[in-house]
């Protein structure tokens, strides 16, 4: 284990700065926003999964008492053939706009078609039913392999497959094909003593954040547009709204309210541009809220997928070759996270010969959106199940085979990058030494499984400003919406630099007019990158404060030292002043001190996790019970260990839901038949044991305190770990998610 530095604030567990607001009901989330003269907006959604819009007649709705405005795609600027760059690569603007309000076709049940603003939410809902839409219903295609067939119904007549730089001549539902190759896979498989190949299928699952999407928009008479909303990234909302409405970013202010969960699902905009359109039309502020069915049917879930994995190993347990075929459902418009899936699938291993093919395929389901390590869980369900099977067939302990092949610093990932210092091996070693792994597990129909996972994490831009107060505290201004305690994990990094307690920092998340550009709270980047910006801003404060002390003592700045919250003079003068006391003398030494830090760091460092799970399989009902769960993860450096544990526990439980219950169940017409929390069936606390989160710290060289992102990787291992545990319990390899009671009963031959 690496040497542990001594920190005063980092690694402690202070009460989170926004905590009291959130336990007293005082914190204001998007839907809580109120404003004089507020109108309420609701969206009419397509009842069909695939249809051409023949006509939309809004006259009856417009005449309904209380209705103040109706919007359709006609109100959006013409988006034909424009490409927008939203910082995550080029996006076809027509797709972006059509997903907000359908123009020519509806491509999924729940696709937004029109919106109404009225004096009450009930009137708006009633008026939606008075909008007459004539559809020409088309056959839907609902599954990735069917969508890839040559005679499948086409969603987009103009979509042609791009494959490694080439574009096909004929239209297809396959938007793109990617391939990564390393070494000589054919040779690698020839060297193997054992080869295991299996097919895997995963269902469509939703992030399941408890707070539905919301947006309130207002246009001032001078053209200033303000949007109050729940989002993972206020600046990303500003960019998307600017592109969709073709409106300058300088005239848009986005105010991020508190956010009730996101997990990647609150990056794309849905109703925010709609609220803006309705506000423009009515001249009043308009609040648009989704209901829960809207959220399931009208926002991006994560893709269903078909995954085929083939791996070969020598009888000593060295993995000689690996091959993967990943076909992901993008939903209605291109953009499935097959790229990240391909990057992550074999990343826990050092394998010399690898080939990975990935396909991004459109189907008549909502356009998928990121969900916690997007793409990696689908891929890892396949690869981690196959590794388990190889270990079992070779009679090698499943953690031991991971140690023998584990990825280390200097190894190359199949898609190109060479690993920096990573903690893959350390998570496996820690899991192997954990009392859970050595505890007895012999009961009938009880089983134990393990799996590892990888997520690369991202950096991107963040800005922080620090204003120094005269009483020795600081106000920290940031642009990262706080979904899980990041006000504190960011504030603690500034506090560490300045030698002050975490409680002496007042962090505020502010609007897009009030802080420098900051990318989304996503990609496990917030504590890493915004924390890095806070570190830089605090360093800036420190430099300026040193200059003030030098001025006070009439010495050169080089003669002032700062340590443990004290400035001291090192040129013979016996001068010393605390940070707090110097803060009280800023007026005399030149006025206020403001520090700033901006970053776009490249060294996010990858995160690894290894999970252990014990299950009991009920032979009569097919129900799988989680008996014990241990999640080991490399956090680099845990700034606030409680919230790191929280990320690990929450991610693991989302994975448990994905493994055992959760999926969109569709009928033949393409209607989701379980679009409620009751029927979608996320885990409740009664379904779970305590989740033992074990933090391993292998500091990330790409961050001053060694931080690695922690939010996403914990959702990667659970599905395969549970499948492997089910195999251990009943001797059957489950290859389809979710592993729900009916699938278990079928697999056991009971139905």
């Amino acid at each position, binding site marked *: 284990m690496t040497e542990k530095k001594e920190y005063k604030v980092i690694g402690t567990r202070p009460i989170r700065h926004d905590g009291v607001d959130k336990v007293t009901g005082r914190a204001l989330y998007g839907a809580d926003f109120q404003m004089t003269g507020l109108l309420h907006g609701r969206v009419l959604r397509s009842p069909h999964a695939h249809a051409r819009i023949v006509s939309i007649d809004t006259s009856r709705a417009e005449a309904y008492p209380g209705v103040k405005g109706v919007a359709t795609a006609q109100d959006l600027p013409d988006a034909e053939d424009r490409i927008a760059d939203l910082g995550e690569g080029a996006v076809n603007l027509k797709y972006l706009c059509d997903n907000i309000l359908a123009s020519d076709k509806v491509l999924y049940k729940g696709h937004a078609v029109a919106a109404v603003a009225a004096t009450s939410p009930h009137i708006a809902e009633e008026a939606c039913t008075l909008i007459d839409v004539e559809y020409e219903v088309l056959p839907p295609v609902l599954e990735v392999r069917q969508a890839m067939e040559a005679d499948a119904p086409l969603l987009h007549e103009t979509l042609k497959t791009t494959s490694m730089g080439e574009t096909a001549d004929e239209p297809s539902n396959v938007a793109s094909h990617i391939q990564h190759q390393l070494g000589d896979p054919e040779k690698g498989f020839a060297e193997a003593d054992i080869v295991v190949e299996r097919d895997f299928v995963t269902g469509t699952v939703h992030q399941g954040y408890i707070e539905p999407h919301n947006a309130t928009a207002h246009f001032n008479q001078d053209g200033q547009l303000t949007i109050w909303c729940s989002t993972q990234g206020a600046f990303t909302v500003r960019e998307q709204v600017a592109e969709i409405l073709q409106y300058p970013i300088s005239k848009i202010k986005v105010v991020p309210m508190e956010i009730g969960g996101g997990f990647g699902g609150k990056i794309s905009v849905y109703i925010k541009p709609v609220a803006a359109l309705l506000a423009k039309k009515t001249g009043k502020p308009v609040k648009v809220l989704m209901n829960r069915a809207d959220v399931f049917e009208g926002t991006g879930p994560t893709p269903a997928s078909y995954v085929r994995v083939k791996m070969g190993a020598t009888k000593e347990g060295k993995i000689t070759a690996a091959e993967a075929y990943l076909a992901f459902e993008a939903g209605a418009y291109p953009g499935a996270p097959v790229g990240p899936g391909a990057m992550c699938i074999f990343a826990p291993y050092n394998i010399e010969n690898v080939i990975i093919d990935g396909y991004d395929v459109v189907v008549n389901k909502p356009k998928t959106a990121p969900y916690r390590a997007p793409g990696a869980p689908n891929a890892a369900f396949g690869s981690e199940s196959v590794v388990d099977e190889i270990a079992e067939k070779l009679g090698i302990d499943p953690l031991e085979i991971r140690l023998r092949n584990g990825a280390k610093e200097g190894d190359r990932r199949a898609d190109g990058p060479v690993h920096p210092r990573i903690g893959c091996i350390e998570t496996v070693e820690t899991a192997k030494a954990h009392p859970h792994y050595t505890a007895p597990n012999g009961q009938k129909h009880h089983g134990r499984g393990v799996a590892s996972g990888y997520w690369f994490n991202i950096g991107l831009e963040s800005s922080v400003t620090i204003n120094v107060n005269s009483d020795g505290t600081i106000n920290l201004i940031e642009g990262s919406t706080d979904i899980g305690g990041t006000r504190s994990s960011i504030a603690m990094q500034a506090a560490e630099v300045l030698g002050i307690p975490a409680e002496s920092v007042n962090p505020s998340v502010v609007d897009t007019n009030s802080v420098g550009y900051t990318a989304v709270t996503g990609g496990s980047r917030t504590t890493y990158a915004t924390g890095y910006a806070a570190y830089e801003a605090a360093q800036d404060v420190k430099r300026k404060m040193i200059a003030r002390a030098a001025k006070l003592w009439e010495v050169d700045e080089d003669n002032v030292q700062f340590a443990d919250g004290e400035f001291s003079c090192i040129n013979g003068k016996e001068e010393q002043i605390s940070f707090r006391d110097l803060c009280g003398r800023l007026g005399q030494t030149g006025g206020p001190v403001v520090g700033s830090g901006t970053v776009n760091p490249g060294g996010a460092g990858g995160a690894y996790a290894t999970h252990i799970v014990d299950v009991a399989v009920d032979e009569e009902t097919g129900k799988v019970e989680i008996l014990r769960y241990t999640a080991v993860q490399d956090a680099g450096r845990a700034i606030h260990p409680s919230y790191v544990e929280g990320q690990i526990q929450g991610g693991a439980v989302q994975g448990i839901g994905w493994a055992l219950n959760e999926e969109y169940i569709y009928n033949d017409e393409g209607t989701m038949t379980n679009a409620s929390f009751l029927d979608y069936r996320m885990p409740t*606390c009664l379904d779970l044991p305590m989740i033992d989160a074990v933090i391993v710290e292998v500091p990330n060289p790409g961050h001053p305190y060694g931080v690695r992102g922690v939010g996403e990787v914990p959702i990667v291992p659970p599905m395969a770990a549970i499948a492997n545990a089910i195999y251990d319990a009943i001797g059957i390899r489950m290859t389809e998610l979710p592993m729900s009671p009916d699938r278990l009963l079928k697999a056991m031959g009971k139905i």
Partner: protein
Amino acid sequence: MARKSHVQTTINGETVEFLCESRQSLLEVLRDELYLTGAKEGCNNGNCGACSVILDGRLVNSCLVLGVETEGKSVETIEGLAEPDKLHPIQDAFLENAALQCGICTPGFIMSAKALLDSNPNPTEHEIRYWLAGNLCRCTGYDKIVKAVMDAAKETSA
């Protein structure tokens, strides 16, 4: 426009009068008429518990109660739990155990936990899990929430 009814009820110990349409739920009344936005809407059909309040001593989903039904009754919401200078022990336990991440489910969990501890001051872990199964949290995996309620029980029954 539907006609509004006059309703008089008690909320957090204070007599409150409001006008509401018959179709408006208690949740809508609390949030949109009385600006008590601590109760949250997660599903509006009784599945998630984010709108939990205590009505005449009984835990309810306020989205499943009509505003007009509260005539003459007593409603406790998250806004009434803390004293002016002191949090309720359940609120303290949630903070000390880091039992919230995004916080949207937190008011509902705290009200649900209060109803539990009011009737069963020393619940087992299983009893806590059984009682709280009507409240969904998507961030925490429930581990720290269950521990917070166990800690609060120790505190309130001591």
